[in-house]
């Protein structure tokens, strides 16, 4: 069966961003003065360990950023190939087992039966009210008494697999990276990797036959949803900065360099933007985007494209509001730089302004830009959850931590409580944000410990 690749806007931008980062990394590695702060960053054990976790998240997010449409089975040879409307990603394909094995409704983690009683018709015609067996979770067990044993076996198998994989990865790292940069404390990375694999291995092994983290209201696997949420967080955390960056940098250094009316105008803009309560501005903009989408159905033929556009616009809106902070920092820094002698000298020699800005100012504020970027990430991930709660976040059909929390919040009132969806969202989000925060701290310390953010 054929596939039709689909390039969503956010996909393209994510890959663009990734290639830009790759080029940047390559460039940095060629220039010692650029590589030095990064070496300082990675000398921190916490940063290295967080980087391992972030890389794992990144891999999942990237897998989820390659979309396609499956061809429908051909009925007639002369008819053209038709593709399903539903847009899937590489991650969906890899997790098709999780995605397709839906139960009827809630089931607890690793359960073999539903979370609520139902009317069951017995073969002899009578019926009783009991917890029915799940369609998929633990369905391979002929006898439910063997459940404990089966779980233990899966755990064991998963752990063995993880240890093997860990060994391989560590060996690979030792012979490649560790040789090249011996000063970096690779032990921390190995430990973090061990931690992660010790969790992921058994999780994956169990996920083959069970719903490891339970199912939600319509019986979808919670683990699958958590993994899908990662891309949404990643897109919001990174693409927003893509919008914010050019505006923030340009406005900040221009205001600081030219001063006078340029400074006044830019300051006017950002004070105006800043003084409007953020949530209200976002709410209005998101509603506006929604109206635009609703009134142009021809531009967005599939639901995936609509949801994607809303996600992209959410990033754009957050970026359009967020640039003011960066611009203010850069303005302050530029004001200081302009007073320095070598810039004054450049002026005196008649070097054009554009050249001074690009050659002298920009490189000297780049550390602030990098710090701001990294520090913004976790804040944006957290903001998404709150905005989705208020109803002005991502499209309701997009799986994200915000939508997960929102749905799970209502489940807390159930008795017995449905806690697994909330706990899953909490854990996945906490790990992501914590890793991002720790990494950001290290970046700040590595680049400029004096910058206050």
């Amino acid at each position, binding site marked *: 069966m054929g596939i039709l690749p689909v390039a969503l806007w956010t996909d393209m931008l994510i890959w663009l961003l990734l290639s830009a980062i790759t080029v940047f990394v390559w460039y940095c590695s060629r220039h010692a003065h650029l590589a030095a702060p990064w070496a300082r960053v990675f000398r921190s054990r916490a940063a290295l360990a967080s980087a391992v976790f972030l890389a794992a998240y990144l891999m999942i997010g990237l897998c989820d950023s390659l979309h396609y449409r499956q061809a429908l089975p051909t009925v007639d040879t002369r008819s053209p190939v038709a593709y399903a*409307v539903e847009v899937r990603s590489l991650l969906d394909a890899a997790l098709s087992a999780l995605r397709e094995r839906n139960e009827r409704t809630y089931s607890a983690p690793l359960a073999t039966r539903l979370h609520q009683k139902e009317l069951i018709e017995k073969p002899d015609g009578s019926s009783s009210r009991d917890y029915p067996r799940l369609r998929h979770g633990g369905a391979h067990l002929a006898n439910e008494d063997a459940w404990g044993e089966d779980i233990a076996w899966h755990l064991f198998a998963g752990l063995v697999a993880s240890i093997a994989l860990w060994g391989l990865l560590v060996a690979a790292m030792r012979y490649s990276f560790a040789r090249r940069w011996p000063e970096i404390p690779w032990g921390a990375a190995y430990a973090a990797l061990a931690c992660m694999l010790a969790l992921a291995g058994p999780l994956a092994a169990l996920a083959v036959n069970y719903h490891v983290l339970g199912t939600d209201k319509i019986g979808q696997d919670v683990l699958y949803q958590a993994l899908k949420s990662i891309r949404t967080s990643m897109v919001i955390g990174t693409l927003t900065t893509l919008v914010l960056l050019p505006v923030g940098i340009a406005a900040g250094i221009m205001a600081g360099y030219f001063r006078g009316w340029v400074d006044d105008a830019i300051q006017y803009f950002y004070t105006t933007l800043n003084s409007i309560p953020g949530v209200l501005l976002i709410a209005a903009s998101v509603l506006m985007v929604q109206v635009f989408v609703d009134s142009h159905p021809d531009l967005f033929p599939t639901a995936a494209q609509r949801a994607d556009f809303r996600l992209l616009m959410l990033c754009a809106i957050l970026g359009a509001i967020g640039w003011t902070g960066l611009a203010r920092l850069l303005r302050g820094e530029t004001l200081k730089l302009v007073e320095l002698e070598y810039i004054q000298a450049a002026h005196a020699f008649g070097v054009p302004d554009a050249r001074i800005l690009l050659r002298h100012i920009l490189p000297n504020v780049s550390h602030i830009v990098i710090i701001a970027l990294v520090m913004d990430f976790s804040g944006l991930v957290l903001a998404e959850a709150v905005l989705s709660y208020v109803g002005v976040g991502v499209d309701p059909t997009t799986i994200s931590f915000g939508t997960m929390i929102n749905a799970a919040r209502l489940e807390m009132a159930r008795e017995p409580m449905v806690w697994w969806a909330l706990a899953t969202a909490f854990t996945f989000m906490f790990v992501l944000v914590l890793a991002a925060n720790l990494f950001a701290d290290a970046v700040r310390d590595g680049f400029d410990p004096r910058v206050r953010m």
Partner: protein
Amino acid sequence: MRALLFLSFLLTGCGEVWNDPYPVADRGRNVMYSAFTERPKHLDPAQSYTEDEARFTQQVYEPPLQYHYLKRPYELIPLTAQEVPKALELEGGKYTQYTIRIRPGIHYQPHPGFVAANLDLERKITDRLRSPYDLPLGTRELTADDYIYQIKRLAHPRLHSPIFGLMSEYIVGLKEYAARLQQAEKPGRWLDLRDHPLEGVERLDAHTYRVKLKGRYPQFAYWLAMPFFAPVPWEAEKFFQQVGMAEKNFTLDWWPVGTGAYMLTENDPNARMRLDRNPNFRGEPYPLVGEAGDAASGLLADAGKTMPFIDRVVFSREKESIPYWNKFLQGYFDASAIPSDTFDQAVRVSIEGESGLTAQMEQREIRLRTSVDTTILYLGFNWLDSVVGGHTDAHAAQRARKLRQAISIAVDWEEFIAIFLNGRGLVAHDPLAPGIFGQREGRDGVNPVTHDWNNGKPERRPIAAARQLLAEAGYPDGRDAKTGIPLVLYLDTVGRGPGDKPRFDWWRRQFAKLSIQLEIRDSDWNRFQEKIRKGSQQLYILGWNADYPDPENFLFLLHGAQARATTQGENTSNYVNAEFDALFERMKNIANSPDRQQLIERMVDIARHDAPWVWGYHPKSYGLTHAWMQNGKPNNMARNNIKYLRVDVDQRSALRRAWNPTVLWPLALVVLLLIAIAAPAFLGYRRRERAAAKPT
């Protein structure tokens, strides 16, 4: 933090429950506690139309008629009228006339408007007012003029009565009256409607008035049971018209004035609405007879006693369903609906399909009462659509009909009800809600297009039958038979937020059964309405909540002459069928009779065959009440239910105490934790101090 907790401890009174959300002063009083989710928008009887508002307005305003509280099917009985008025046909049915006789001796609630001095207040007095009830209060007797005044208000240029359009079709001269008032109205001046007579409404004496309608309209009697036809004293309107009143939100729209059992004494739609017993209420006896089984369930214990029983009703604003439910379980609300997410906690469905309460609820002696709402929710097809709609060409029309029928089979409402509503709904087989005249039971009540009748119960037809119909419609396996292009349909819905995703997935699965690709376009309410208005939707989901228990109020949703896209009517599917329309015209204006039954049956059969809707479901409402609440019975029509209710205050206080034991160990734990954090810090501090003091 500890200090604050301690403070709250002191405030709530030692030994009492800590989490009582109500003022200490109200403890032990004969108060009923309820909640409201949506803030009301209008409490003016000419404008108020929603159920959220009816909960307040119907306790205060008394139209001439009301529904019997206990009897089913719903029956109209007099409220302030002496009897239910009979329609009198004039000029061979060209006009009908209703003569309504009001009981003498009914008095209004205390209100400042009835004191002449208050009608000309000085600005500085108004500015200082905190509540209209701070002024001297008066009352007066209810007269027929007040009813006439309100009918005139339906045409008032400053008010937006939702039924003005409808009523101007019937009440003689109302349309022209509105135009006349438009002319007479001057900005900044109070428009006294008493100076402007209305042709179709006539005062016979102080307690009798007459309404003249064009043609026959038997449903008019139902309207006479709604606050649209309640009395409004001109004094109240004049009182609230004074300068400075509106700035304080002192308007008739927020402060109703009526003759009912209760009066609205506190009005803060953000937090709290309070009803107090109307001291001038004449007293009404509790009904003597009810439905079969009412006596057994204790609903007739108070028969003949003078209502109301409760002194005060406090409605608290509760926007979120979880706090609402939890407060109910803690005993701070006397009654509650059951949120879908907590259904299992409250209700278990027995093998026979009967629902009962769970052990936990039964132990608390909570009572469950269920009833089917006079509401229908459905998936509509737009008749103007080129794929699923009606066609003039017979062949195309047949194809589209088969497609609609196939979809009607595939959409498994039984599963929808089970998953999303916990079984709180009945699958609809036609637009008529259960209990409405014309609705059939048993085999005839089942739609043969979607269901088979097996072993005495309806069973949804197999998906193979749907696929067969789909193939006949020209889409074998969901592909266009000619081009091989997959069939894609578009469903318009109103997005309600992040909780929608499971629902959308479910919808896609229904269409996937037929290999039809479904695209869901959700939008906000405005955009959705706009699409419907333009007739540009294909599939859509909508509901209708009946105004009155008459088949006309459901079947008109399919009346071709009321199509939304062309006439802005309520037929959102834009369904047109000449035979159906002709039958509707005959059916709508005759009284319930075997003749009418036949007409309705024929109409329903046509609609089932044409399948302009995938008949959805009628929601059931499940109400829970605590043991201390007596006389609660769900009633979809009568909202003036509070006067019937009774509360056992002592039992409530005792149970609240038992259910809300304060758990103190976490507080102790917090204190210990703080010490655990502070101790090493303190020790470290001491060590450093000493180290610093030592000469090094």
